[in-house]
């Protein structure tokens, strides 16, 4: 009697737990459901938050105009807490339970890799907003993954742009200082890989942790080398600390950073120390300085004013821009081809001359990113503001 009762108690508790999970199932038909797995909290929250906001804003705007061919868009956004495991469960939820027709995400390469097999296995398109070229191209077979696309510029492009700049300025000796996480690792990988091609000599290769509060030790080591430029590859608060330490140490080399700092938060944190830093960036942060003939100018200014009006005091960031591009490319294709997965996929692949926030996209069967080096412009920070370098 006792054991039966105890077992029933346990079963009831387990059962209740599942019943509640199952009970959330609600069947729906007409709206186009688009899923997104974003790193809204956790280590990449500074990137994920504007992405989420942008997606919500654009979906709202599109629905106000009547949706796509009469179908409203239902944007289902899940937070993966910058954790690959959670990214997997959320992706499965989107694909199996919510039955979305496409998935946008994730924010970082590290959280995108594990969800690729899930979305691809379900044969629906995945549009990532993360940087690594390995997302769209299998690194072992070098084949383009048919169901995966991305809108963030590859770090390989950013590195090429930086190395071009260095070549132009006759700088060949470079010190690296990168963060020990997916973003930093990927950048470091590209920096090392492309150096010989551009005849760059890497004289130091320092690393620091995501949570590290002081990089003076690493910079001191670099100060002792004959580096002419220092390249720092990091996002969130790390680059601001590097900038401050760099200034405090009185280092005179050129300080170059990645496109990961192209947002107002970096300027706020680094303050004066940001001045003089050079970086490759999408045109979004210097939209007003673009010549009137630039095809991206209008879209960028439009997005900027809408975003800042809705989410003030937040300012636009390149990350939100990636989400913008993902949403627009997806919905444009949806408009032309409808929700049937293979047709949708083929239509996304046909994206040509799309002027987005990250650049001008020209995709094809072998190019699911669609951007070139020209997606970037070189920018210098002067007086606390972004200035386009000609």
């Amino acid at each position, binding site marked *: 009697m006792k*054991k039966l009762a105890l*077992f029933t108690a346990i079963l009831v*508790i*387990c059962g209740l*737990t*599942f019943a509640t999970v*199952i009970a959330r199932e609600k069947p729906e038909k007409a709206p186009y459901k688009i899923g997104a797995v974003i790193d809204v909290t956790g280590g990449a929250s500074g990137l994920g938050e504007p992405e989420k906001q942008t997606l919500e804003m654009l979906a709202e705007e599109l629905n106000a105009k009547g949706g796509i061919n009469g179908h409203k868009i239902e944007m289902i956004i899940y937070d993966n807490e910058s954790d*690959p495991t959670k990214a997997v469960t959320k992706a*499965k939820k989107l694909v199996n339970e919510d039955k979305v027709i496409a998935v946008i995400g994730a924010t970082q390469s590290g959280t995108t890799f594990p969800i690729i*097999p899930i979305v691809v296995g379900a044969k629906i398109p995945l549009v990532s907003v993360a940087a690594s070229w390995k997302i769209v191209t299998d690194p072992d077979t070098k084949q383009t993954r048919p169901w995966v696309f991305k809108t963030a510029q590859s770090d390989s492009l950013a590195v090429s742009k930086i190395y071009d700049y260095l070549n132009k300025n006759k700088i060949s000796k470079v010190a690296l200082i990168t963060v020990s996480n997916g973003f930093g690792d990927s950048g470091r990988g590209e920096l090392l890989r492309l150096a010989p091609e551009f005849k760059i000599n890497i004289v130091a290769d320092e690393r620091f942790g995501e949570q590290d509060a002081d990089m003076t030790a690493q910079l001191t080591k670099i100060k002792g080398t004959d580096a002419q430029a220092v390249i720092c590859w990091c996002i969130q608060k790390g680059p601001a600390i590097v900038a401050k330490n760099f200034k405090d140490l009185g280092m005179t080399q050129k300080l170059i950073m990645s496109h990961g700092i192209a947002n107002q938060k970096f300027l706020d944190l680094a303050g004066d120390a940001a001045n003089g830093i050079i970086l490759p960036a999408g045109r979004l942060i210097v939209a007003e300085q673009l010549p009137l003939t630039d095809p991206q100018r209008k879209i960028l200014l439009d997005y900027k004013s809408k975003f800042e009006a809705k989410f003030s005091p937040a300012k636009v960031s390149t990350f939100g821009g990636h989400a913008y591009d993902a949403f627009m490319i997806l919905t444009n294709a949806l408009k032309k081809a409808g929700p049937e997965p293979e047709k949708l996929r083929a239509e996304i692949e046909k994206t040509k001359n799309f002027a987005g926030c990250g650049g001008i996209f020209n995709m094809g069967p072998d190019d699911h990113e669609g951007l070139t080096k020209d997606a970037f412009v070189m920018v210098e920070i002067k007086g606390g503001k972004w200035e386009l370098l000609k």
Partner: protein
Amino acid sequence: MRRDWSLWAMLAATIFLLPLFVKSPYYFSVLIFIAIYGMIVLGLTMLMGYAGQISLGHAAFFGLGAYFSSILTLHLHLNPWLAMLMGLVATVLIAFLLGIPTLKLHGHYLAMATLGLGIVLQIIFKEEVELTGGPTGLTGIPALTAFGITFSNDRTFYFLAWIFMLALLGLSINLVHSRTGRALRAISQSQVAAGTLGIPVNRLKLSVFALSAGYASIAGSLYAHYLAFVNPTPFGFLVSVKLVAMVVIGGSASLWGALLGTTLLVSLPEFLTRLQDYEMVIYGAILILVMMFAPRGLTGIAGKIFELLHGLTRGKNAQAA
């Protein structure tokens, strides 16, 4: 003893019958995670509840299992089962060696030592990029296969994971009801007293520590093959804390507590997605409240409810007589 085995049988039946009612791969994946974390928590419950030792670094053993499996199958192209076995042996050995100096400590010192070990191991996972892929991790880990079945989708993996879980649960039930189990319980009450009774305290503590590391290693290997991807994030301090929370909330004195605690803490965040931002606050509050008001966890509460009901029926019978 019989009670535990009948519960075990009923659980096994439930597990095998469930797929008749549940279809969505999403629910299977939640159940798979319950099984995987459940294995680690089971081992940890034996360590904490039965042997009375605390470990704040168990996620590292989870990681060791995952990385051994991944590295051996990806870089050396070994058979995944062989890799899992080798990973198990290696992890148990490492735990044993690390345990020798560590288990001489008590209370806070033991907690901090295990914490330190866990953190150092996770840093190694992050830094040894050539071996572990660093923060980016390793992708494309091959699936497990047996008897012609490839365990690559949620439905099949569900069975695999729960077969392992049931096996380990059975092993634990055996252990707990044996002489060793009683010896362990003596140790958790008082190491000195147990020692005077002739119980080889140090050897037993070490063995349970190594065993619990082994459970975690198996869970880690399964995890790696399930996700086909590993990186250092799931093997850090915060996860170790969550594991301890699962032990404590379920009730460290009972093996079933491990299952309860894991089920609760794995599925709760799933259906509270609207309260995502509050997850940390809720976690912290639950830990504090459980420790303050129900230190024996959910199984403790269930036990008390029983005593109450039992007492009532007894009372009635007494009166009737």
